[in-house]
């Protein structure tokens, strides 16, 4: 019973972090129609910045704020000064199909190399602001700590804020309209390019938050969030790639599947499970589990 409850709790906090990554991927996909593989690099770079601020100020919270803000700035910069010129330059020819994806990959490599230049390739540790020792329930220590609880709460708050932003504000309406139909949005007078950059900024901030919440339970190194990129992608695909709700729901499904398999069968099956889920969803419901009808063709 205790094992079962622990599995549920760890699934939730793992799923929460996947949700941040999948949300970031979905935000960019919706506005730009590209899977931003550089997201793993952006997130880990902002986490290094958060780490640096944490070390210098002695406060994780300043680090967290720094990571979120630089995450947003880096995301916006990449869209404005990297992706936009690329889309402008490459308009025709067979390379059009692969150029944007290849560009984000190149960017991922460059970011990770730059991290190596600045901080080296060795593993760093980022101390959590609250205890990472599991709670003790009737004498047994479970695999769920105050920090896991903090992760769960922070992500829940973030998701509520994002929902309010998207559903209740004018900016949110502009973001949604630009994602669904850039042409109609433009014809209505909305500066779609600027809105798109804003989407990249929000995605970047989400990545920074994800890093600051994930790394204390892991290690900080240039490839430290590659795996999270994969889990975020799988979550986003489960959710249909186009839907923010789907991204979160997909992350929870993946979190539960992975953690229950790890708890009850073997941690060795974590990756195979994730991969099998991805392939199954793509083959059976390529539009995601929550789409009623049309899967996207492109």
């Amino acid at each position, binding site marked *: 019973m205790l094992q079962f409850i622990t599995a549920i709790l760890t699934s939730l906090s793992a799923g929460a972090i996947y949700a941040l990554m999948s949300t970031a991927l979905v935000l960019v996909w919706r506005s730009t129609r590209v899977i931003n593989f550089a997201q793993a690099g952006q997130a880990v770079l902002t986490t290094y910045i958060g780490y640096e601020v944490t070390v210098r100020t002695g406060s994780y919270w300043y680090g967290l704020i720094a990571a979120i803000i630089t995450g947003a700035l880096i995301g916006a910069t990449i869209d404005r000064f990297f992706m936009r010129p690329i889309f402008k330059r490459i308009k025709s020819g067979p390379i059009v199909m692969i150029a944007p994806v290849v560009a984000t990959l190149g960017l991922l490599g460059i970011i990770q190399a730059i991290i190596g230049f600045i901080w080296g390739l060795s593993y760093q540790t980022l101390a959590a602001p609250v205890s990472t020792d599991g709670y003790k329930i009737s004498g047994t220590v479970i695999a769920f700590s105050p920090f896991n609880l903090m992760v769960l709460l922070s992500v829940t708050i973030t998701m509520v804020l994002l929902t309010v932003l998207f559903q209740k504000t004018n900016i949110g309406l*502009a973001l949604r309209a630009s994602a669904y139909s850039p042409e109609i949005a433009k014809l209505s007078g909305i500066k*779609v390019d600027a809105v798109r950059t804003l989407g990249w900024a929000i995605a970047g901030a989400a990545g920074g938050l994800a890093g600051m919440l994930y790394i204390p339970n892991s290690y900080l190194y240039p490839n430290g969030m590659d795996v999270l990129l994969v889990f975020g992608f799988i979550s986003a695909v489960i959710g249909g790639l186009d839907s923010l709700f789907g991204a979160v729901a997909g992350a929870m499904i993946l979190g539960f599947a992975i953690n229950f398999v790890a708890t009850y069968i073997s941690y060795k099956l974590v990756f195979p499970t994730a991969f099998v889920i991805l392939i199954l969803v793509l083959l059976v419901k390529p539009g995601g589990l929550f789409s009623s009808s049309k899967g996207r063709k492109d």
Partner: protein
Amino acid sequence: MSLVVENLTIDHGAIRAIDNVSFTVPTGQLAAVIGANGAGKTTLLRTLSGLKESKSGSATWNGKSILGARPEDLARSGIMHVSDGKSVIAELTVKENLALAGLWRKDKKDVAAVTSEVVDLFPVLGQRMSQASGSLSGGERQMLAIGRTLIARPKLLLLDEPSLGLAPLIIEQIFQTIKSLVAKMNLTVVLVEQNAMGALKIADEGIVLNLGSVVAVDSAQTLLNDPAVRAAYLGF
């Protein structure tokens, strides 16, 4: 004060869609651009609203060039385009679709005022405000698309085949509304149509396009009564 198009030429790659086209629409007038499928009507409108680049020639609105400007800037300066195929965002509610064209406007009081004018004009929209607009009928979507442009208080309205795929009764109703808007909202309208008869009946002027070239420009009344034009291009 007018829309002036001079020697405008537009290509789609190797295909010349608009070839050396010139015409003028004085403010306050409703001009119908008619022509068969593939005549270049959509291409012309998309260029006037900034969605497409032109090859050569000029187009000015009230003396200012509009070619090469961005669609969002043109929209903000009062040139609104309803693209073909009932341009509404199906995933958004009716209310949200209407709100789009007012998001950037400073005068929020006027946005509220014009929204209620639009709802008076199209009462069905008022009843469906919080429904997803994907659930509207074709005619209702066309009303929503036109209604949305009005929220921006446009000066020049570019309409691409509003009658497409609608039942005759609804077409009649939409055309009458468009005609009434000209005076009510102080508009200049370029109405692109395959439905030549319907469009010419409400238009002041008619411009007949064929394979990218202007083959006749005259008052709508004259075109309607000209047997040669009727036989060659209007098909009735």
